[in-house]
C-alpha cells in the first residue's frame, strides 16, 4: 500500500509540474483511473521542455530553471504550494457569507451613485445648452453653476468607487491607473498624509516661502534623485553627488496634459558688493509635457531646441559661506508654450522667482529643496564645471568694539598672580591666558 501511495505521489508531482496552468484539482486518490494514466504517458513525453509558473513552482529544480531565465518565483515556497493546491478563487468571489452580503450592499450603493452621475451629466449638458444671455451677469452665473456641478460630478465619481476592495488592493499594490479619478484621489490622500506635511514643514523651516515667493501651497508631489541617491527634502548633499544632473519625479493629481517649467535656484549666493545675498539660476527648462501618468522628468533629457533654457551648473558653496539652499521649482505654464529664445534672455545671476513667475504666467505646483555646503569635493567640482573662485574663502569681518577693553576686576584681578596659579590649575585655561596678557600689558605700560 505504502509503495503504491509513494508512486502515486511522484506521479502527482509530475502532473503538477506539467499542468500547472490548470487549476490543480486532481487529488492524489485519482491515481487508479485510466484517464490519469493517459496523462502520465503524455507527461513522460513532455518532460523534455517543462515550463514553470513563477506563481506555483515549488521544486528547487523548477525555481532554478526559472531564475536562470531571469524570472523570480513569487513569494515563499510555502505560499506557492498553497496557491497550487487551492482552487484559486478570485478575491471577490470568496465564499464568506458576511463578505458577500457586504459586497451586495456596496454594489447597490455603486449603482445608485452611477445613476446620480448620469443625472448630473445630463444636468450639465442641459445647462450648457441653456441660454443665459438675457439674464444679468448671465455668463458669470452660468460659469459658477457649471463649476459647482462639475465639482459635484467629480465627488460622485470618487464616491462610486471609494468602497471597492479591489480598487483599494490595486492601489496598495502600486498597480493604480492614474487616468482614473479614484486612483488619483487615493494617491493624493496618501501624499497628503505624510509627504505633503513634510515638504510644507521644510519650506517653512528653510524660509523658502518668504525668501523666494510670498506664499505657496504645493499641490503636486515632487521626488528627486541624483542617480540612485534619493534626496529627501532639505537634505545636505555632497557636492560630488550633485555634480550630475538630477532626475525629478513629478506626480500631479489633477487630470490632463500640461506644460511645465523647472527652475533650480540657489538663493544664498554671497553678494560682496551689497554685503548680502542674491540668487542664481542653476538650471531652467520649459515646455516639458506632464500628466498624471507621465511622471518622470530627467534633467538631462531636455531638448536643446525648444526646452532647455539654462544648462545645469552643479551646486557649489564656496568655502566659509553659510549653507546654500537649492530649491527645485515645478511651475505649470498657464499661457501654453513659452518662447525659449525669450526665456534665454533671463540672466542666471540675480534671477528671482518673484518677478519671473508673474511675467511668464507660471503657476507653482511643487517644490523640492536640498542644501549644500563646502566639502572636500567642491573645489574639484568647480574646476570641472569651469567655475572660478574655488580658492576664495569667505570670512566674517571682525568689528572691534568702540568701548575700550575692560581690565580684570574683583576676585580675578586679585588672584591673577603666580601665587594663585594652583587655584586655576586645570580649569579656565583660556581665562588664564587672558589674565596673563593683561598683566604683561600692564607691565609694558608702566
Amino acid at each position, binding site marked *: 500500500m505504502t509503495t503504491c501511495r509513494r508512486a502515486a505521489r511522484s506521479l502527482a508531482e509530475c502532473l503538477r509540474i506539467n499542468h500547472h496552468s490548470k487549476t490543480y484539482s486532481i487529488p492524489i486518490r485519482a491515481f487508479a483511473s485510466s484517464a490519469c494514466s493517459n496523462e502520465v504517458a503524455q507527461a513522460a513525453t513532455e518532460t523534455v521542455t517543462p515550463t514553470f509558473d513563477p506563481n506555483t513552482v515549488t521544486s528547487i529544480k523548477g525555481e532554478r530553471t526559472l531564475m536562470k531565465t531571469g524570472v523570480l518565483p513569487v513569494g515563499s515556497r510555502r505560499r506557492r504550494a498553497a496557491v497550487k493546491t487551492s482552487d484559486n478563487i478570485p478575491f471577490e468571489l470568496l465564499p464568506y457569507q458576511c*463578505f458577500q452580503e457586504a459586497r451586495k450592499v456596496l454594489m447597490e450603493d455603486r449603482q445608485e451613485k452611477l445613476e446620480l452621475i448620469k443625472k448630473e451629466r445630463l444636468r450639465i449638458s442641459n445647462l450648457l445648452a441653456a441660454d443665459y444671455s438675457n439674464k444679468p451677469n448671465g455668463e458669470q452665473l452660468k460659469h459658477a453653476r457649471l463649476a459647482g456641478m462639475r465639482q459635484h460630478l467629480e465627488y460622485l465619481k470618487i464616491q462610486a468607487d471609494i468602497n471597492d476592495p479591489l480598487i483599494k488592493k490595486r492601489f496598495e499594490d502600486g498597480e493604480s491607473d492614474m487616468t482614473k479619478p479614484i486612483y488619483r484621489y487615493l494617491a493624493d490622500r496618501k501624499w497628503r498624509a505624510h509627504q505633503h506635511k513634510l515638504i510644507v514643514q521644510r519650506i517653512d523651516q528653510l524660509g523658502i516661502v518668504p525668501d523666494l515667493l510670498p506664499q505657496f501651497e504645493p499641490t503636486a508631489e515632487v521626488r528627486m534623485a541624483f542617480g540612485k541617491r534619493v534626496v529627501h527634502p532639505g537634505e545636505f548633499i555632497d557636492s560630488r553627488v550633485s555634480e550630475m544632473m538630477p532626475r525629478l519625479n513629478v506626480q500631479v493629481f489633477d487630470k490632463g496634459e500640461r506644460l511645465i517649467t523647472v527652475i533650480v535656484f540657489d538663493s544664498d549666493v554671497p553678494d560682496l558688493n551689497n554685503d548680502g545675498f542674491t540668487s542664481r539660476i542653476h538650471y531652467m527648462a520649459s515646455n516639458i509635457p506632464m500628466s498624471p501618468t507621465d511622471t518622470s522628468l530627467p534633467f538631462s533629457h531636455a531638448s536643446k531646441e525648444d526646452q532647455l533654457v539654462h544648462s545645469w551648473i552643479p551646486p557649489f558653496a564656496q568655502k566659509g559661506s553659510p549653507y546654500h539652499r537649492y530649491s527645485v521649482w515645478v511651475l505649470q505654464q498657464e499661457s501654453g508654450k513659452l518662447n525659449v529664445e525669450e526665456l534665454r534672455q533671463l540672466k542666471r545671476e540675480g534671477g528671482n522667482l518673484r518677478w519671473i513667475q508673474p511675467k511668464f504666467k507660471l503657476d507653482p505646483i511643487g517644490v523640492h529643496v536640498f542644501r549644500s555646503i563646502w566639502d572636500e569635493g567642491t573645489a574639484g567640482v568647480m574646476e570641472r564645471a569651469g567655475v572660478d573662485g574655488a580658492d576664495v574663502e569667505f570670512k566674517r569681518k571682525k568689528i572691534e568694539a568702540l568701548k575700550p577693553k575692560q581690565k580684570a576686576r574683583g576676585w580675578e584681578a586679585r588672584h591673577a598672580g603666580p601665587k594663585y596659579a594652583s587655584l586655576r590649575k586645570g580649569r579656565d585655561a583660556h581665562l588664564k591666558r587672558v589674565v596673563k596678557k593683561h598683566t604683561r600689558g600692564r607691565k609694558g605700560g608702566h
Partner: protein
Amino acid sequence: MPQLTPLYRLLTPLLQTLRSPPTLRSFSTTSSLSAGPPKKKVNVDPRITLIRYHLQHPKTPRPLKLSRLRGLRHWTIHRAWMLMRRKREEKESAELYRMYQSMSKANELLRTMDPPGMKDAGRLYRIAQEKKGIFGHGGVPIEYARWQTDTPGREPWNHGWTR
C-alpha cells in the same frame, strides 16, 4: 501551586512587592561584597509594572492581527456596515423632517384660513396649539412625578406601590 484566578492574577505583583525580599542565610557573618560598583536601582513606576504584567501575561489574548486578504474582507464589511447605518440614519432624519414640515404646513393653513376681523378667526389654530392631554388624560410629565433630586434614590422604582 496556587490557583490562577483573575483576582489572584490581579494581586500577584502587589503581593510580590509586599513580600519581604528573599533572605539568603550566608555562612559567614561578615557582610558579603558584590563584585563591581553598586548597581543603580532603576525606579520604575508601579503602574507601568502592573500594565506590563497584565499585557504580557500568558492569559491575556494576543493583539488581533489579520492577514492581507482577511483584513481587506474586514474592511469591506466595515465599509458596508457604515454605509448601511448612515443610509438608515439619513432616512430616519428625512422622515422626521418631512413630518415636521407637514405639521407646520397644516398649522400655517389653519392660521391663515379665516379672514381677519371675523368673530371666530383663528379658533381652530388656537385649539390646535393646545398641549392638553399630551402626557395622558390629566397627566403631568413623568419628570414631575417624583421630587427632583441630584442623585437617584436608593430604590429606583417602587413596583409594589398601589394607591
